[in-house]
């Protein structure tokens, strides 16, 4: 390991600019002549629009233009799309309603886009929006996930019973047979609470049009600018792909919510041409709560069958997934292929069958949010495993160990083939760090102080590095999920890496440079990572699903291999040796068995001056590109243990210890990885204890600000004990598995398993707020009082 190579805890290069306020986010871009867009949003969850009178608004001071859905339709601008086709059990394609960027005839959630005002200033745009007269016929709304299919309200005409699809995965007959054989069946009902992503930077967009060249530019808060360009051009049709440049500069967090292509950026690009001026929109926090795609929102019933020895025989799951009022870009994949294939957890479960009903409601669209499907699956598996162990009177750690998969590769009954892992190693290490053997003493000590102490496990697995393009294509994905990279070596030997991954908090400028430093033997300050601009990077699939290490860096590694191969040729000419005798080691191209060698920079210079070889023998220059398509998903896994104490008088839960032992494969930068684990746990604890989007029955978002939507704070979290185990991933050249979502996936069941352990019963839902825990603690006390 070199000081800046793979495995070194290098400080993040990008932090200098972030912590000194030098970051450049979309809202920092102001274009000459720029006007401001403000979206008039629906105050109702469900209403027919009888008419919209924009007349009074158009004559307000500073107004440049006012547009409605009719204007988009007149220009043949298509609706927003969902890029993953899911088929129902009966083979029929999912029933997706239209998703216009500005409402046409109907609004379907509070915050839905009714019209846009473009004005000289934002304040003028807002003033004018107040003057738009909309005649609404308010309709009853449906908000409840479990009730949606039975509700007397229909959100989309094309979707009877508000049902988008009835999907399934696994083997029903084998699962039924397993349950028939079972000695014991454990049942559980779960709600996976709806979350609002809340990245620190709200979404923003600046659209610009150059009539001279007919070129469009969109600055946008995107995790995948090329996908945005593809969707905006090929599907929505705002501009031809080769005429549209999408720039996603510094982006302040996404957590999934900035993967999707939304109405606002669509309208900004389109309107820039209409009004012949750059058009800017920046979301405020209220708009973010109302209109960013939310996460999770599942209602699940699950059952686990075990035999007389406590071996798991089968799992059956029924989930209703709320997709909100419209299908967001990847929404259909989240409760299906990102969910059910993870239901085997770390366990050898011979038979699994999962049914998912996806429903429309009059709520904000729901799509991928940190973990996307995998937290939901892990919550089902880990709550159920813990409950089963308790019902069987077995130690939850040993029950897990007994059922762990130990032979690899392992094909689960739900598509996935796990490549490698050592689950017991993580468990052992976690038990050690958590001092599990003395837990009972600590519990008694708490009891003496009138407190309830509990411990909970989460032995999670996830699938990252999405994914072999053929595989996802066969499952309905509209795109391939490879990644691209281009390595440009300059004549001075410095290197620019153009990547299709996008960094919005992950630290790519550091970790990607570490890979280059490691491979080429040059310091990381000689390496620039270029991303987020479709004019610079040819194509890329972007960053989500912890894929940038396993897929994005693998593409870079592949391109680096080509650079080294070319460098070897150049060196052979310069050193007048045969190519086969050139070795590349420690940043030097040398002739084997001699001390004749050239530094990497010298070879770069020789490649460009091209004096030592003829154009017939070798092309000048040193620049190579690669596309990397993974051969499998990667399977990060680990064990998290949460120990907490409940004050039964108030219901306050205090997390006392947190142990995380993760196997992320090869680690590029342990400091950054640990940071990702910390952030993930914080988000998972947020889901378990604090966060929850609440709509009232009329479809108003009750938790539409930080006054009511509770984000995790430092004070809510203990100091984490983080450990690692490593089984290198065999399916990519770097052995990387991915770490971006693990904490958010692992944490919720660990917290709730600890709470239910403390309470002595399972009757608590997320978020386990003080009120909920107090009430549950009352219930726990009751039998004691009755004795």
């Amino acid at each position, binding site marked *: 390991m070199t000081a800046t190579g793979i495995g070194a805890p290098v400080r993040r290069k990008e932090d200098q600019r972030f912590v000194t306020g030098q970051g450049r986010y979309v809202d920092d871009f102001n274009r000459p002549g720029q006007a401001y867009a403000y979206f008039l949003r629906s105050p109702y969850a469900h209403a027919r629009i009888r008419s919209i009178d924009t007349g009074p608004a158009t004559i307000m001071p500073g107004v440049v233009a006012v547009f409605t859905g009719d204007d988009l339709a007149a220009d043949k601008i298509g609706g927003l799309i969902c890029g993953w086709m899911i088929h129902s059990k009966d083979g029929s394609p999912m029933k997706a309603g239209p998703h216009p960027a500005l409402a046409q005839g109907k609004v379907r959630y509070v915050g839905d886009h009714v019209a846009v005002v473009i004005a000289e200033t934002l*304040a003028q745009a*807002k*003033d004018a929006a107040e003057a738009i007269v909309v005649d609404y016929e308010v309709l009853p709304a449906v908000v409840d996930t479990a009730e949606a299919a039975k509700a007397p309200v229909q959100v989309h005409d094309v979707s009877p019973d508000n049902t988008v699809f009835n999907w399934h995965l696994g083997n029903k007959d084998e699962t039924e047979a397993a349950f028939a054989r079972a000695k014991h069946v454990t049942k559980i009902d779960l709600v996976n609470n709806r979350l609002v992503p809340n990245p620190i930077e709200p979404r923003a967009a600046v659209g610009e049009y150059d009539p001279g060249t007919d070129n469009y530019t969109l600055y946008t808060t995107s995790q995948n600018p090329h996908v945005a360009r593809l969707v905006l051009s090929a599907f929505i049709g705002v501009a031809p792909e080769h005429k549209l440049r999408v720039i996603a500069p510094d982006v302040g967090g996404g957590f999934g919510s900035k993967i999707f292509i939304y109405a606002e950026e669509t309208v900004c690009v389109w309107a820039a041409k209409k009004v012949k001026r750059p058009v800017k929109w920046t979301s405020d926090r*209220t708009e973010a709560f109302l209109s960013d795609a939310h996460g999770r929102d599942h209602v699940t019933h699950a059952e686990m069958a075990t035999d007389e020895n406590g071996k798991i025989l089968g799992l059956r799951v029924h989930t209703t997934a709320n997709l909100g009022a419209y299908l967001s870009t990847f929404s259909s994949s989240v409760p299906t292929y990102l969910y059910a294939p993870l239901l085997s957890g770390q366990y050898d479960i011979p038979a699994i069958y999962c049914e998912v009903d996806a429903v429309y409601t009059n709520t904000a669209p729901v799509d991928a949010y940190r973990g996307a499907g995998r937290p939901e699956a892990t919550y089902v598996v880990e709550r159920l495993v813990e409950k089963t162990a308790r019902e069987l009177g077995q130690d939850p750690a040993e029950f897990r160990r007994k059922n762990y998969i130990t032979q690899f590769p392992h094909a689960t009954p739900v598509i996935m083939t796990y490549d490698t892992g050592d689950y017991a190693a993580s468990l052992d290490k976690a038990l050690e760090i958590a001092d599990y053997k003395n837990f009972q003493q600590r519990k008694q000590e708490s009891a003496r102080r009138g407190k309830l102490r509990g411990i909970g496990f989460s032995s999670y697995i996830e699938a990252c590095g999405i994914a072999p393009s053929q595989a996802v294509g066969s499952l309905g994905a509209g795109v391939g999920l490879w990644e691209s990279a281009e390595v440009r070596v300059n004549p001075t030997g410095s290197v620019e890496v153009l990547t299709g991954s996008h960094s919005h908090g992950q630290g790519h400028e550091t970790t990607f440079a570490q890979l280059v430093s490691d491979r080429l033997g040059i310091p990381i300050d000689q390496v620039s990572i270029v991303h987020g601009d479709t004019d610079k990077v040819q194509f890329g699939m972007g960053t989500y699903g912890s894929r940038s290490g396993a897929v994005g860096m693998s593409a870079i590694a592949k391109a680096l291999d080509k650079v080294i191969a070319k460098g070897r040729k150049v060196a052979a000419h310069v050193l007048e040796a045969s190519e086969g005798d050139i070795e590349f080691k420690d940043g030097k191209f040398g002739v084997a068995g001699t001390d004749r060698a050239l530094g990497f920079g010298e070879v770069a210079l020789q490649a460009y001056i091209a004096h030592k070889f003829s154009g017939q023998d070798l092309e000048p220059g040193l620049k190579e590109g690669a596309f990397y398509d993974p051969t499998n998903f990667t399977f990060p896994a680990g064990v998290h243990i949460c120990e907490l104490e409940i004050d039964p*008088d*108030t*219901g306050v839960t205090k997390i006392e210890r947190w142990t995380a032992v993760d196997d992320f494969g090869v680690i590029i930068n342990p400091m950054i990885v640990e940071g990702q684990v910390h952030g993930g746990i914080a988000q998972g604890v947020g889901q378990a204890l*604090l966060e929850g989007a*609440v709509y009232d029955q009329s479809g108003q978002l*009750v*938790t539409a600000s*930080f*006054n*009511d*939507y*509770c*984000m995790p704070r430092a004070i809510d979290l203990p100091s984490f004990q983080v450990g690692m185990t490593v089984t290198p991933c065999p399916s990519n050249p770097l052995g990387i598995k991915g770490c971006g979502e693990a904490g958010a996936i692992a944490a919720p069941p660990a917290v709730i398993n600890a709470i239910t352990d403390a309470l002595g019963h399972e009757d608590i839902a997320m978020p386990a*707020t*003080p*009120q909920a825990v*107090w*009430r549950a603690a009352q219930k726990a006390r009751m039998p004691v009082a009755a004795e």
Partner: protein
Amino acid sequence: MYAFEYHHPTSVEQAADLATRSEDAKFLAGGHTLLPTMKLRLAAPANLIDLGQIAELRGIQRSGDAITIGAMMKHAEVASSADVRAAIPALAELAELIGDPHVRNRGTIGGSIANNDPSADYPAACLALNATIVTDKRKITADDFFQGIFTTALDEGEIITRISFPVPAQAAYAKFRNPASRYALVGVFVARHADGVRVAVTGAGSNGVFRLPEMEEALSRNFAAEALDGIAVPEDEMNSDIHADAAYRAHLVGVMARRAVQAAAARS
């Protein structure tokens, strides 16, 4: 935010005069309540009279058996005041529990009391400590001042200049924070005075801050947490929202009252 006229008087007299002369005027203190409502376009005063440059509204004095705090004193200033810490430590601790550092370094005691948010902390201190709210026109006892949520005895254009807190024998404040906003979900301020105990509750009541006479009587007889045993807090006047329903709030009032009494009794 809509456009408004901004004024920055340097005396209370000027401020009062501006308020009577200008149409639709509002005083601006720390702005931590007023400005967000204006940004959300829920409030749209035509004239904003900033009290920030008025020296008379600042300062903390200890005189005999009272602490007097200028209306424009920020929460952080009250929290760190040596005089307040020495005379009424519970008041300094309460100020320390408000919001976060940003809020404590902008928000003012006068703004908090004038606003009378049902979840604000200071109203409980005022009521339990039997404070006197001094305005440019008169003196109002806390019992008369707080008149229901966001409602006070202040007349249009009346300015709070200072608040005077009698120093109690013992006092403490126990706050149960709303997990999201950090305001009081339930806050109970208990103060033992020479002539009896006062117990004030904020956050919980559907009609704003209130006193609990039954607890006050019991504690006046015996200033110990056990004195509260058997005293039930009625649910019917409790607030109910997604964070806490009436039953939970009523329960928490009891728990916080006990904790406050324990903390106060432990003080010499």
